């Protein structure tokens, strides 16, 4: 049964076309997934279908839901679809749920006001029970775990009785375990309905199956059944996208034996009197990479900061006393936050060069090596993309000839292809310079392919 037909949907900003015409059909029980990076136009496509395009952007094409036709150029008309025929899953459920309303009420109000069903409270309770959320009914969203909030938002979005589910980037910024939860939820949405998912997440796309549309620069470059696209991609971009998945990265070649740089015995870190993780020990030589894995909030960053000497710790931590004082450097998760916001990147580098009397001639070859244009240095951090900024942060660290680099989830906010390139550059340069790296990530596949040894932290 066909639930939704979108024909020649495109998006314009004035005379600029941001999304070239795309057609897609949602069938009962079949998933359609739009795969692409940020800026590929995949979210705009979904917004054009839903009628939620930002001000200044116009959609065109035709949309048929059930027997009714809608015009994406007049998004106000789409409003009747929301909740009743299309359930929209929020990107970040924790922010999308009303923090001041109890869980069950947020579902019950939809039964009551949207579906006009009898006994909304009973129905809401049943919805929650079906998702294993019995305990969440009386709680406020901020009292729930991320996974529970996700399920609550799913229940609230679908309580209006919609057969179609649209999910825009449902796994953005999630740990691997949570990603599996989302996959299970979306599969539930497929039972007795259609599903349109917008994502950059190959694992999710694989798990959902159905049809995949690959978007780049506002155009669908390749489409077809999930199994075919993911195993035998035709278009070069699809191939690059699949190669960028850490699960498909080449295995790391172990480095030659080098002197030990950092040795930890029974080390742990406390915050506000609470020990963050069970004491750990490791020995890290120059040229080696240590991967640190663990659930969010377990103290991965704190352990790294303790090695850098930024935080007090318990246990024994030995750092090679022969290492230079400024030889321990760091890359941050949120690249713009790691730079002074109001001075140009070049100004920051100039200050560093002046402070440590560094030879200015070293900057140009490093820019070249990191594939950075010198003109980027005239901009403010806010005017440079995350991937470029992270490479400039690496350049800044390299000027100080580091022997150790703490990479604190350095690529978690980058697109897959950018992530692959950034990590490749980082590991290559570390090998050239015999630099030791401590790499923190919530992506186990990524850590497996970059690390010589892994350390899994567990909460105390």
């Amino acid at each position, binding site marked *: 049964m066909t639930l939704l037909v979108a024909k020649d949907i495109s998006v314009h900003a004035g005379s600029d076309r941001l999304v070239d015409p795309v057609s897609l059909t949602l069938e009962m029980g079949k998933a359609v997934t739009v795969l692409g990076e940020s800026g590929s136009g995949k979210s705009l496509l979904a917004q054009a279908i*839903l009628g*939620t395009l930002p001000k200044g952007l116009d959609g065109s094409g035709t949309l048929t839901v059930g027997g009714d036709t809608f015009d994406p150029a007049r998004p106000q008309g789409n*409003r009747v679809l*929301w*909740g*009743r025929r299309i359930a*929209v899953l*929020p*990107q*970040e459920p924790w*922010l*999308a*749920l*009303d*923090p*001041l*309303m109890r869980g069950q009420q947020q579902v019950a*109000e*939809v039964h009551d*006001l*949207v579906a006009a069903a009898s006994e909304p409270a009973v129905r809401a309770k049943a919805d929650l029970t079906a998702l294993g959320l019995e305990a969440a009914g009386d709680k*406020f969203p*901020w009292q729930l775990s991320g996974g529970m909030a996700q399920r609550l*938002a799913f229940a*609230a*979005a679908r*309580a*209006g009785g919609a057969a179609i589910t649209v999910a825009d980037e449902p796994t953005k910024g999630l740990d691997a375990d949570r990603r599996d939860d989302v996959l299970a939820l979306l599969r539930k949405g497929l039972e007795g309905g259609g599903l349109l998912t917008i994502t950059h997440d190959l694992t999710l796309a694989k798990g959902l199956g159905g049809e995949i549309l690959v978007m780049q620069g506002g155009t669908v470059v390749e489409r077809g059944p999930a199994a075919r696209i993911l195993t035998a991609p035709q278009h070069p971009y699809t191939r690059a996208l699949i190669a960028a998945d850490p699960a498909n990265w080449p295995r790391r070649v172990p480095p030659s034996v080098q002197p030990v740089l950092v040795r930890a015995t029974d080390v742990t870190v406390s915050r506000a009197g609470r020990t963050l993780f069970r004491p750990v020990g490791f020995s890290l030589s120059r040229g080696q990479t240590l991967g640190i894995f663990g659930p969010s909030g377990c103290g991965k960053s704190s352990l790294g900061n303790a090695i850098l000497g930024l935080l007090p710790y318990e246990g024994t931590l030995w750092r090679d006393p022969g290492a230079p004082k400024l030889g321990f450097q760091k890359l941050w998760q949120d690249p713009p936050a790691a730079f002074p916001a109001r001075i140009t990147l070049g100004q920051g580098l100039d200050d560093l060069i002046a402070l440590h009397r560094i030879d200015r001639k070293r900057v140009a070859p490093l820019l070249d090596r990191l594939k950075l244009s010198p003109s980027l240095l005239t901009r403010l951090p806010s005017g440079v993309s995350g991937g470029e900024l992270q490479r400039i942060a690496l350049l800044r660290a390299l000027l100080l000839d580091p022997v150790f680099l703490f990479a604190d989830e350095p690529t978690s906010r980058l697109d897959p292809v950018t992530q692959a390139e950034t990590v490749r550059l980082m590991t290559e340069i570390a090998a050239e310079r015999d630099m030791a790296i401590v790499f923190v990530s919530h992506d186990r596949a990524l850590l497996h392919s970059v690390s010589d040894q892994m350390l899994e932290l567990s909460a105390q």
Partner: protein
Amino acid sequence: MNTALNTIAFRLMQAAGVALVVGVMSFLMMQAMPGDMAFRIAAARYGYDLVNADLANAVRAELGLDAGPVTQFLHWMGGLARLDLGQSLVSGQPVWDEITHQLGASLQLALAAIVLSLLIGPPLGICAGLHAGGRFDRALLVVAASFRAVPQFLLGLLLIILLAVQMRLLPAAGHGSLAHFVLPALTLALGLAAASARITRDAMAGVAASPLYAFARAKGLSDGEVLRRHGLRNIGAPVVTYLGLQFVLLVEGVVVVETIFGWPGIGHALIHAVFHRDVPMVQGTALVMGLGFVLLNAIIDLIVRRIDPRGVQS
């Protein structure tokens, strides 16, 4: 519960801080006045009519006024800690009696102004915030900004000229009938309304642009339902918190407006006391105003905790 106790503990500390600042200032005022300190304190205690050299000497001995400023200061603060505010230097009446006498008139005026401002400000702010950047929003921004540029005394002056002198609609000064209420209450309310419209508008615009608002609409709720069920709930805490901070503005307004319109309240009494260098009365009114702020904000903290149980952001 722990955070509720923290809130109360903070407000108690703040109250102590207010009393300390007022006490120090009052002590300095006493020191700065011409003449014999012991005589003035005796007058403050027993009234000017009864004071004589013996009483003054008794006070001097009791308070150790020859003992140096530190001891004197401790005695002064001791009186304050026992909530012994002394007598007015002008009327001879106990300061507490004078203040409780005048507080009622001030509270009436303040309450009328608050109610009036709440009827004007927040509804306009909600309308503007729901369509942030729209024509109404920009118009309100200009109007609110010009009202902020008009201090309350100036607004009072303009209203007197316009409504009392030119159009002869209302009495300019006095107390007693309902007509006397209009000008002073309106003067206070317009300034407060401009401020609260502005803050409501910002809160509403923030909530209307938030993911929670988008999700509530995506669930299928109508605009009115979204506003009633999610919008108002979420602007409540910031707006109420801000109203508490506005209390200082209100008190300042009350002082000026009461004096302009001859309203027999605590602000009028303060100006009168300053004019006559009646330090115990100044101390008493300052204390009541400062502690009133703390008390009101303590109540607001508790209300906000009920609206938003996540805890009060300072």
